[in-house]
């Protein structure tokens, strides 16, 4: 299984559509303490296996000033942790955090990717993934254009 570090976004958005369990396709799933504090109100967090980590201020300071000025502290903790790992996936729905991570050479994916990958992992079937993607648009607080979700659904349907 792939190891991953989760930002607040996927934890919140997947919980909102009742699919937090899709994060069980990652092991370990690391969540910095600062992120856990942000998502305290997320229901069913106990249903997934989480490895809690504390990121030090010195570790965060090693990130560039440009990144530190642009992202919030939870995202910075995620990037600081990822930076010190050899192979880990950063899970975030924040586009600024995503692009900063990619510039640092960190593989990054969001909730839509988690749902689609869960089909390949055998956690859900295509029909359930399509329903989950639609709920991302209609129910979750993820800010995303409907057409983009429809594009994702179309690609999922076209794939074998």
């Amino acid at each position: 299984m792939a190891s991953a570090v989760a930002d607040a976004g996927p934890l919140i958005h997947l919980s909102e559509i009742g699919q937090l369990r899709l994060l069980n396709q990652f092991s370990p799933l690391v969540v910095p303490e600062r992120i856990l504090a942000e998502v305290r109100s997320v229901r069913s967090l106990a249903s997934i296996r989480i490895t809690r980590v504390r990121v030090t201020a010195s570790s965060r300071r090693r990130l560039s000033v440009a990144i530190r000025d642009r992202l919030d502290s939870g995202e910075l903790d995620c990037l600081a942790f990822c930076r010190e790992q050899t192979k880990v996936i950063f899970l975030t729905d924040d586009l600024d955090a995503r692009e900063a991570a990619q510039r640092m050479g960190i593989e990054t994916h969001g909730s839509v990717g988690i749902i689609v990958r869960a089909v390949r992992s055998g956690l859900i079937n295509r029909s359930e993934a399509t329903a989950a993607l639609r709920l991302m648009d209609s129910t979750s607080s993820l800010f995303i254009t409907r057409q983009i979700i429809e594009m994702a659904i179309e690609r999922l349907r076209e794939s074998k």
Partner: protein
Amino acid sequence: MTKALLDQIEEVARLTREDSAQVITEALAAGMAKLYADAVLGAFLRGKISRRHAIKRVGLEAVRQAERQARAVRDDVKWGLNG
């Protein structure tokens, strides 16, 4: 209209000191603005209208955001299917 929605309207009216009719009018306008932006950005992403046309209707920032999102989701779907 659901009870939850009615409760929300009442709470917003109380917090903003507006009457419920005004709250409903503003909610309709806000909802319509989102539907309009979604429709325009959707048409742009499908190639039905030009980037210039989309910018004129919903603004540069909204178009850039939609482009970034589309790029991210395309990468994510590719990873999800093959990665």
